[in-house]
Protein backbone atom coordinates (compact mmCIF):
# COMPACT_ATOMS: atom_id res chain seq x y z
CA UNK A 1 0.00 0.00 0.00
CA UNK A 2 2.63 2.50 1.01
CA UNK A 3 4.58 1.82 -2.15
CA UNK A 4 1.49 2.21 -4.23
CA UNK A 5 0.64 5.62 -2.86
CA UNK A 6 4.24 6.71 -3.37
CA UNK A 7 4.10 5.98 -7.07
CA UNK A 8 2.70 9.39 -8.03
CA UNK A 9 5.41 11.31 -6.24
CA UNK A 10 7.94 8.87 -7.65
CA UNK A 11 6.70 9.43 -11.21
CA UNK A 12 7.05 13.17 -10.73
CA UNK A 13 10.56 12.76 -9.34
CA UNK A 14 9.68 14.26 -5.97
CA UNK A 15 10.84 11.50 -3.60
CA UNK A 16 14.17 11.60 -1.83
CA UNK A 17 16.84 9.10 -2.79
CA UNK A 18 16.03 6.56 -0.07
CA UNK A 19 12.33 6.60 -0.81
CA UNK A 20 12.96 6.33 -4.53
CA UNK A 21 15.14 3.26 -3.92
CA UNK A 22 12.36 1.71 -1.85
CA UNK A 23 9.89 2.26 -4.65
CA UNK A 24 12.30 0.85 -7.20
CA UNK A 25 12.84 -2.25 -5.07
CA UNK A 26 9.10 -2.71 -4.95
CA UNK A 27 8.71 -2.08 -8.67
CA UNK A 28 11.16 -4.88 -9.38
CA UNK A 29 8.72 -7.31 -7.77
CA UNK A 30 5.36 -5.84 -8.63
CA UNK A 31 4.09 -5.95 -12.19
CA UNK A 32 0.94 -4.09 -11.22
CA UNK A 33 2.89 -1.09 -10.01
CA UNK A 34 5.11 -1.18 -13.06
CA UNK A 35 2.08 -1.00 -15.29
CA UNK A 36 0.63 1.80 -13.24
CA UNK A 37 3.88 3.72 -13.38
CA UNK A 38 3.74 3.68 -17.17
CA UNK A 39 0.36 5.39 -17.02
CA UNK A 40 1.48 7.91 -14.47
CA UNK A 41 4.48 8.77 -16.58
CA UNK A 42 2.21 9.38 -19.55
CA UNK A 43 0.25 11.81 -17.45
CA UNK A 44 3.49 13.52 -16.58
CA UNK A 45 4.07 14.02 -20.30
CA UNK A 46 0.69 15.70 -20.54
CA UNK A 47 1.52 18.00 -17.66
CA UNK A 48 4.53 19.08 -19.69
CA UNK A 49 2.16 20.71 -22.20
CA UNK A 50 1.39 23.42 -19.70
CA UNK A 51 4.16 25.90 -18.98
CA UNK A 52 4.97 26.48 -15.30
CA UNK A 53 4.13 30.14 -15.74
CA UNK A 54 0.48 29.11 -16.13
CA UNK A 55 0.27 29.03 -12.34
CA UNK A 56 1.26 32.61 -11.70
CA UNK A 57 -1.60 34.97 -10.90
CA UNK A 58 -2.27 38.65 -10.92
CA UNK A 59 -0.77 41.52 -12.89
CA UNK A 60 2.95 41.65 -13.69
CA UNK A 61 5.47 43.70 -11.77
CA UNK A 62 6.28 47.00 -13.40
CA UNK A 63 3.86 46.53 -16.26
CA UNK A 64 2.04 49.85 -16.10
CA UNK A 65 3.38 51.14 -19.40
CA UNK A 66 2.53 47.85 -21.04
CA UNK A 67 -1.03 48.13 -19.81
CA UNK A 68 -1.27 51.74 -21.00
CA UNK A 69 0.02 50.85 -24.46
CA UNK A 70 -2.40 47.95 -24.70
CA UNK A 71 -5.37 50.01 -23.62
CA UNK A 72 -4.42 52.71 -26.11
CA UNK A 73 -4.22 50.20 -28.93
CA UNK A 74 -7.63 48.81 -28.04
CA UNK A 75 -9.16 52.28 -27.82
CA UNK A 76 -7.72 53.23 -31.19
CA UNK A 77 -8.87 50.01 -32.79
CA UNK A 78 -12.32 50.40 -31.30
CA UNK A 79 -12.51 53.87 -32.81
CA UNK A 80 -11.92 52.36 -36.24
CA UNK A 81 -14.60 49.68 -36.46
CA UNK A 82 -13.60 48.46 -39.87
CA UNK A 83 -10.19 47.58 -38.59
CA UNK A 84 -11.68 45.70 -35.71
CA UNK A 85 -14.07 43.73 -37.79
CA UNK A 86 -11.23 42.41 -39.88
CA UNK A 87 -9.98 39.08 -38.72
CA UNK A 88 -6.48 39.07 -37.38
CA UNK A 89 -4.65 39.01 -40.66
CA UNK A 90 -2.54 35.93 -40.78
CA UNK A 91 0.60 36.43 -42.74
CA UNK A 92 1.44 33.73 -45.18
CA UNK A 93 4.93 32.57 -44.46
CA UNK A 94 7.09 29.78 -45.42
CA UNK A 95 7.37 27.40 -42.60
CA UNK A 96 10.90 26.89 -41.37
CA UNK A 97 11.79 23.48 -40.15
CA UNK A 98 13.00 24.83 -36.91
CA UNK A 99 9.51 25.79 -36.08
CA UNK A 100 8.88 22.30 -35.01
CA UNK A 101 9.43 23.87 -31.67
CA UNK A 102 6.24 25.69 -32.34
CA UNK A 103 4.58 22.45 -33.23
CA UNK A 104 4.75 21.57 -29.58
CA UNK A 105 2.07 24.17 -29.09
CA UNK A 106 -0.61 22.05 -30.54
CA UNK A 107 0.83 18.67 -30.30
CA UNK A 108 1.30 15.89 -28.07
CA UNK A 109 0.18 12.54 -28.50
CA UNK A 110 -0.42 9.99 -25.92
CA UNK A 111 -2.47 7.14 -24.78
CA UNK A 112 -3.86 7.00 -21.31
CA UNK A 113 -3.48 3.36 -20.56
CA UNK A 114 -6.62 1.68 -21.76
CA UNK A 115 -8.30 4.90 -22.67
CA UNK A 116 -6.81 6.87 -25.48
CA UNK A 117 -7.82 10.46 -25.08
CA UNK A 118 -9.10 11.01 -28.56
CA UNK A 119 -7.53 8.05 -30.08
CA UNK A 120 -8.08 5.84 -32.97
CA UNK A 121 -10.67 3.82 -31.15
CA UNK A 122 -12.69 6.86 -30.42
CA UNK A 123 -12.54 7.96 -33.98
CA UNK A 124 -13.60 4.58 -35.18
CA UNK A 125 -16.41 4.35 -32.70
CA UNK A 126 -17.89 7.64 -33.76
CA UNK A 127 -21.00 7.22 -35.83
CA UNK A 128 -19.35 8.27 -39.01
CA UNK A 129 -18.46 11.84 -39.74
CA UNK A 130 -20.45 14.55 -38.03
CA UNK A 131 -22.91 16.60 -40.08
CA UNK A 132 -21.20 19.18 -42.22
CA UNK A 133 -18.04 17.13 -42.62
CA UNK A 134 -16.11 17.26 -45.84
CA UNK A 135 -14.25 14.24 -47.12
CA UNK A 136 -11.59 14.23 -49.79
CA UNK A 137 -8.81 11.92 -50.77
CA UNK A 138 -5.67 12.08 -52.85
CA UNK A 139 -2.70 9.99 -53.86
CA UNK A 140 0.78 11.39 -54.12
CA UNK A 141 2.55 10.06 -57.16
CA UNK A 142 6.01 10.61 -55.74
CA UNK A 143 5.58 9.17 -52.26
CA UNK A 144 2.92 6.65 -53.22
CA UNK A 145 0.88 7.55 -50.16
CA UNK A 146 -2.89 7.80 -50.35
CA UNK A 147 -4.76 9.90 -47.84
CA UNK A 148 -8.45 10.17 -47.06
CA UNK A 149 -9.15 13.34 -45.15
CA UNK A 150 -12.26 14.23 -43.18
CA UNK A 151 -12.75 17.80 -42.07
CA UNK A 152 -15.23 17.85 -39.21
CA UNK A 153 -16.80 21.02 -37.86
CA UNK A 154 -16.65 21.56 -34.13
CA UNK A 155 -17.88 24.52 -32.16
CA UNK A 156 -15.93 27.07 -34.16
CA UNK A 157 -12.90 24.92 -34.52
CA UNK A 158 -12.13 21.97 -36.68
CA UNK A 159 -11.20 18.38 -36.16
CA UNK A 160 -9.29 16.79 -39.01
CA UNK A 161 -9.02 13.06 -39.42
CA UNK A 162 -6.82 11.33 -41.92
CA UNK A 163 -6.29 7.77 -42.94
CA UNK A 164 -3.14 7.18 -44.91
CA UNK A 165 -1.91 4.11 -46.68
CA UNK A 166 1.48 3.59 -48.22
CA UNK A 167 3.53 4.93 -45.31
CA UNK A 168 6.75 3.38 -44.12
CA UNK A 169 6.88 1.91 -40.64
CA UNK A 170 8.76 4.15 -38.26
CA UNK A 171 8.07 7.27 -40.30
CA UNK A 172 7.52 10.31 -38.12
CA UNK A 173 4.71 12.29 -39.67
CA UNK A 174 3.28 15.70 -39.05
CA UNK A 175 -0.01 17.14 -40.13
CA UNK A 176 -0.10 20.70 -41.41
CA UNK A 177 -3.29 22.55 -42.18
CA UNK A 178 -3.24 25.58 -44.46
CA UNK A 179 -6.09 28.04 -44.13
CA UNK A 180 -7.50 30.21 -46.88
CA UNK A 181 -5.38 33.14 -45.80
CA UNK A 182 -2.28 31.04 -46.29
CA UNK A 183 -1.45 30.51 -42.66
CA UNK A 184 -0.09 27.12 -41.76
CA UNK A 185 -1.23 25.37 -38.60
CA UNK A 186 0.30 22.30 -37.07
CA UNK A 187 -2.24 19.71 -36.08
CA UNK A 188 -0.09 17.05 -34.55
CA UNK A 189 2.58 14.46 -35.13
CA UNK A 190 2.82 10.74 -34.79
CA UNK A 191 4.92 7.74 -35.62
CA UNK A 192 3.77 5.07 -38.02
CA UNK A 193 3.75 1.60 -36.49
CA UNK A 194 4.36 -1.59 -38.42
CA UNK A 195 0.68 -2.38 -38.23
CA UNK A 196 -0.32 1.07 -39.41
CA UNK A 197 2.07 0.81 -42.33
CA UNK A 198 0.28 -2.37 -43.37
CA UNK A 199 -3.28 -1.45 -42.59
CA UNK A 200 -3.33 2.31 -42.90
CA UNK A 201 -2.36 4.92 -40.38
CA UNK A 202 -5.06 6.97 -38.72
CA UNK A 203 -4.52 10.30 -37.11
CA UNK A 204 -6.65 13.13 -35.85
CA UNK A 205 -5.80 16.66 -34.87
CA UNK A 206 -7.57 19.89 -34.01
CA UNK A 207 -6.99 23.32 -35.48
CA UNK A 208 -8.34 26.57 -34.18
CA UNK A 209 -9.97 27.73 -37.40
CA UNK A 210 -13.46 27.24 -38.68
CA UNK A 211 -13.93 24.33 -41.10
CA UNK A 212 -14.76 26.54 -44.06
CA UNK A 213 -11.33 28.13 -43.72
CA UNK A 214 -9.50 24.87 -44.26
CA UNK A 215 -7.82 24.96 -47.64
CA UNK A 216 -5.54 21.96 -47.58
CA UNK A 217 -4.10 19.30 -45.34
CA UNK A 218 -0.54 18.22 -45.86
CA UNK A 219 1.44 15.44 -44.29
CA UNK A 220 5.19 15.81 -44.07
CA UNK A 221 7.80 13.79 -42.33
CA UNK A 222 9.58 15.34 -39.40
CA UNK A 223 12.60 15.46 -41.69
CA UNK A 224 10.65 17.78 -43.95
CA UNK A 225 9.81 15.48 -46.84
CA UNK A 226 6.41 15.99 -48.44
CA UNK A 227 4.22 12.91 -48.16
CA UNK A 228 0.77 13.77 -49.44
CA UNK A 229 -1.64 16.71 -49.62
CA UNK A 230 -5.39 16.83 -49.88
CA UNK A 231 -7.04 20.03 -51.03
CA UNK A 232 -10.46 20.66 -49.57
Amino acid at each position, binding site marked *: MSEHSQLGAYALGALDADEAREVEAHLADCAECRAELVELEELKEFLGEVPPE*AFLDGPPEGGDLLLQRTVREVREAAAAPSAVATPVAPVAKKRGRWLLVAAAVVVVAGALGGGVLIGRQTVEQADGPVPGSVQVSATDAASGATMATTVEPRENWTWIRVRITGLKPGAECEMYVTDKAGKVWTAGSWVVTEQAAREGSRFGGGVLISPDQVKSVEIKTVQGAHVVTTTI
Partner: protein
Amino acid sequence: MATTATEYFPGWAPAVTGIVPSVGDYQGADAGETFVRSLYAEHGRSLLAYATRLTGDRAAAEDVVQETLVRAWKHAADLNKGAGSVRGWLLTVARNIVTDRARARAARPAEVADVVDRPPVEGDHSDAVVNTMVVLGALDQVSPEHREVLVELYYRGRSVAEAAQELGVPPGTVKSRTYYALRALRAVMAGSEAEVAR
Protein backbone atom coordinates in the same frame (compact mmCIF):
# COMPACT_ATOMS: atom_id res chain seq x y z
CA MET B 1 -25.10 10.95 -32.83
CA ALA B 2 -23.05 13.94 -33.71
CA THR B 3 -20.07 14.45 -31.51
CA THR B 4 -19.61 17.98 -30.33
CA ALA B 5 -16.54 19.61 -28.93
CA THR B 6 -18.12 19.58 -25.51
CA GLU B 7 -18.44 15.85 -25.64
CA TYR B 8 -14.82 15.49 -26.50
CA PHE B 9 -13.63 17.66 -23.70
CA PRO B 10 -16.41 18.51 -21.31
CA GLY B 11 -15.91 21.76 -19.56
CA TRP B 12 -13.18 23.41 -21.50
CA ALA B 13 -14.02 23.07 -25.16
CA PRO B 14 -15.62 26.46 -25.68
CA ALA B 15 -12.31 28.14 -24.98
CA VAL B 16 -10.97 26.59 -28.13
CA THR B 17 -13.34 28.73 -30.09
CA GLY B 18 -11.30 31.76 -29.18
CA ILE B 19 -9.61 32.07 -32.54
CA VAL B 20 -12.75 32.88 -34.45
CA PRO B 21 -12.74 36.61 -35.02
CA SER B 22 -15.41 38.37 -33.10
CA VAL B 23 -15.63 41.57 -31.20
CA GLY B 24 -18.79 40.49 -29.52
CA ASP B 25 -19.82 42.30 -26.41
CA TYR B 26 -16.77 44.50 -26.24
CA GLN B 27 -17.22 46.76 -29.21
CA GLY B 28 -17.05 50.08 -27.46
CA ALA B 29 -13.76 51.58 -26.44
CA ASP B 30 -14.78 51.61 -22.78
CA ALA B 31 -15.94 48.03 -22.76
CA GLY B 32 -12.79 47.02 -24.60
CA GLU B 33 -10.65 48.81 -22.11
CA THR B 34 -12.44 47.17 -19.19
CA PHE B 35 -12.02 43.78 -20.75
CA VAL B 36 -8.32 44.21 -21.45
CA ARG B 37 -7.69 45.58 -17.97
CA SER B 38 -9.41 42.62 -16.38
CA LEU B 39 -7.40 40.15 -18.44
CA TYR B 40 -4.24 41.98 -17.55
CA ALA B 41 -5.08 42.00 -13.85
CA GLU B 42 -5.79 38.31 -13.80
CA HIS B 43 -3.36 36.84 -16.30
CA GLY B 44 -0.73 39.52 -16.92
CA ARG B 45 1.93 38.10 -14.69
CA SER B 46 1.55 34.61 -16.08
CA LEU B 47 1.63 35.87 -19.67
CA LEU B 48 4.56 38.19 -19.27
CA ALA B 49 6.65 35.63 -17.40
CA TYR B 50 5.97 33.08 -20.09
CA ALA B 51 6.66 35.46 -22.97
CA THR B 52 9.85 36.60 -21.26
CA ARG B 53 11.11 33.07 -21.00
CA LEU B 54 10.26 32.36 -24.65
CA THR B 55 11.78 35.53 -26.03
CA GLY B 56 14.55 35.98 -23.47
CA ASP B 57 13.85 39.68 -23.63
CA ARG B 58 11.53 41.76 -21.49
CA ALA B 59 10.78 44.40 -24.15
CA ALA B 60 9.96 41.80 -26.77
CA ALA B 61 7.87 39.95 -24.22
CA GLU B 62 5.86 43.07 -23.47
CA ASP B 63 5.10 43.43 -27.18
CA VAL B 64 3.93 39.85 -27.27
CA VAL B 65 1.68 40.36 -24.26
CA GLN B 66 0.25 43.51 -25.80
CA GLU B 67 -0.57 41.73 -29.02
CA THR B 68 -2.01 38.77 -27.13
CA LEU B 69 -4.35 40.97 -25.14
CA VAL B 70 -5.45 42.88 -28.23
CA ARG B 71 -6.21 39.62 -29.99
CA ALA B 72 -8.11 38.44 -26.93
CA TRP B 73 -10.23 41.56 -27.09
CA LYS B 74 -10.93 40.97 -30.78
CA HIS B 75 -12.05 37.45 -29.89
CA ALA B 76 -13.71 38.39 -26.64
CA ALA B 77 -17.10 36.89 -27.28
CA ASP B 78 -15.65 33.48 -27.93
CA LEU B 79 -13.13 33.68 -25.16
CA ASN B 80 -15.84 34.41 -22.67
CA LYS B 81 -17.70 31.24 -23.40
CA GLY B 82 -15.09 29.13 -21.73
CA ALA B 83 -13.87 30.88 -18.64
CA GLY B 84 -11.98 27.83 -17.45
CA SER B 85 -9.34 27.94 -20.10
CA VAL B 86 -8.96 31.61 -20.87
CA ARG B 87 -5.44 31.41 -19.57
CA GLY B 88 -4.70 28.41 -21.74
CA TRP B 89 -5.94 30.36 -24.72
CA LEU B 90 -3.84 33.39 -23.86
CA LEU B 91 -0.68 31.36 -23.31
CA THR B 92 -1.20 29.51 -26.56
CA VAL B 93 -1.73 32.71 -28.50
CA ALA B 94 1.34 34.27 -26.88
CA ARG B 95 3.42 31.30 -27.88
CA ASN B 96 2.09 31.43 -31.44
CA ILE B 97 2.99 35.10 -31.66
CA VAL B 98 6.50 34.42 -30.43
CA THR B 99 7.03 31.67 -32.95
CA ASP B 100 5.44 33.66 -35.77
CA ARG B 101 7.76 36.56 -35.07
CA ALA B 102 10.79 34.37 -34.84
CA ARG B 103 9.80 32.80 -38.12
CA ALA B 104 9.38 36.17 -39.77
CA ARG B 105 12.72 37.35 -38.45
CA ALA B 106 14.81 34.52 -39.71
CA ALA B 107 13.78 31.93 -42.20
CA ARG B 108 16.47 29.63 -41.02
CA PRO B 109 17.24 26.39 -42.79
CA ALA B 110 16.41 23.07 -41.23
CA GLU B 111 18.29 22.33 -38.08
CA VAL B 112 17.86 19.07 -36.34
CA ALA B 113 18.72 20.59 -32.99
CA ASP B 114 15.60 22.66 -33.17
CA VAL B 115 13.32 19.71 -32.87
CA VAL B 116 14.53 18.72 -29.43
CA ASP B 117 11.70 20.59 -27.86
CA ARG B 118 9.22 18.31 -29.48
CA PRO B 119 7.43 15.95 -27.24
CA PRO B 120 8.20 12.31 -27.73
CA VAL B 121 5.96 10.62 -30.20
CA GLU B 122 5.39 6.96 -29.82
CA GLY B 123 3.29 4.49 -31.61
CA ASP B 124 0.45 4.92 -33.97
CA HIS B 125 -2.03 4.35 -31.15
CA SER B 126 -1.20 7.79 -29.92
CA ASP B 127 -3.06 9.60 -32.62
CA ALA B 128 -4.52 12.12 -30.28
CA VAL B 129 -3.69 15.71 -29.82
CA VAL B 130 -3.35 17.26 -26.44
CA ASN B 131 -2.37 20.84 -25.98
CA THR B 132 -1.95 23.47 -23.35
CA MET B 133 -5.63 24.27 -23.30
CA VAL B 134 -6.64 20.65 -22.88
CA VAL B 135 -4.31 19.98 -20.00
CA LEU B 136 -4.97 23.27 -18.27
CA GLY B 137 -8.68 22.64 -18.70
CA ALA B 138 -8.30 19.20 -17.15
CA LEU B 139 -6.32 20.65 -14.26
CA ASP B 140 -9.20 23.06 -13.71
CA GLN B 141 -11.51 20.13 -13.24
CA VAL B 142 -9.65 18.28 -10.51
CA SER B 143 -10.08 19.41 -6.91
CA PRO B 144 -8.02 22.35 -5.61
CA GLU B 145 -6.09 20.01 -3.29
CA HIS B 146 -5.16 17.80 -6.19
CA ARG B 147 -4.26 20.68 -8.42
CA GLU B 148 -2.04 22.37 -5.87
CA VAL B 149 -0.03 19.28 -5.12
CA LEU B 150 0.68 18.79 -8.84
CA VAL B 151 1.63 22.43 -9.18
CA GLU B 152 4.05 22.18 -6.26
CA LEU B 153 5.70 18.91 -7.25
CA TYR B 154 5.65 19.15 -10.99
CA TYR B 155 5.53 22.78 -12.06
CA ARG B 156 7.48 24.21 -9.15
CA GLY B 157 9.80 21.23 -8.92
CA ARG B 158 9.43 20.91 -5.16
CA SER B 159 10.27 17.77 -3.23
CA VAL B 160 7.64 16.03 -1.13
CA ALA B 161 9.18 17.51 2.02
CA GLU B 162 9.15 21.05 0.59
CA ALA B 163 5.60 20.72 -0.66
CA ALA B 164 4.50 19.36 2.73
CA GLN B 165 5.88 22.45 4.40
CA GLU B 166 4.41 24.79 1.79
CA LEU B 167 0.96 23.22 1.98
CA GLY B 168 1.00 22.57 5.73
CA VAL B 169 0.23 18.86 5.50
CA PRO B 170 2.29 15.78 6.41
CA PRO B 171 4.62 14.36 3.73
CA GLY B 172 2.55 11.18 3.62
CA THR B 173 -0.46 13.25 2.66
CA VAL B 174 1.47 14.94 -0.12
CA LYS B 175 2.44 11.55 -1.50
CA SER B 176 -1.01 10.03 -1.39
CA ARG B 177 -2.57 13.21 -2.73
CA THR B 178 -0.14 13.23 -5.62
CA TYR B 179 -1.10 9.72 -6.48
CA TYR B 180 -4.82 10.45 -6.33
CA ALA B 181 -4.35 13.74 -8.15
CA LEU B 182 -2.79 11.93 -11.10
CA ARG B 183 -5.58 9.37 -11.03
CA ALA B 184 -8.15 12.15 -10.95
CA LEU B 185 -6.47 13.87 -13.88
CA ARG B 186 -6.49 10.65 -15.77
CA ALA B 187 -10.18 10.19 -15.03
CA VAL B 188 -10.98 13.69 -16.28
CA MET B 189 -9.09 13.13 -19.50
CA ALA B 190 -10.37 9.63 -20.06
CA GLY B 191 -13.87 10.81 -19.19
CA SER B 192 -13.96 12.75 -22.38
CA GLU B 193 -13.53 9.55 -24.27
CA ALA B 194 -16.35 7.84 -22.44
CA GLU B 195 -18.53 10.73 -23.50
CA VAL B 196 -17.59 10.28 -27.10
CA ALA B 197 -18.10 6.55 -27.11
CA ARG B 198 -21.61 6.90 -25.73
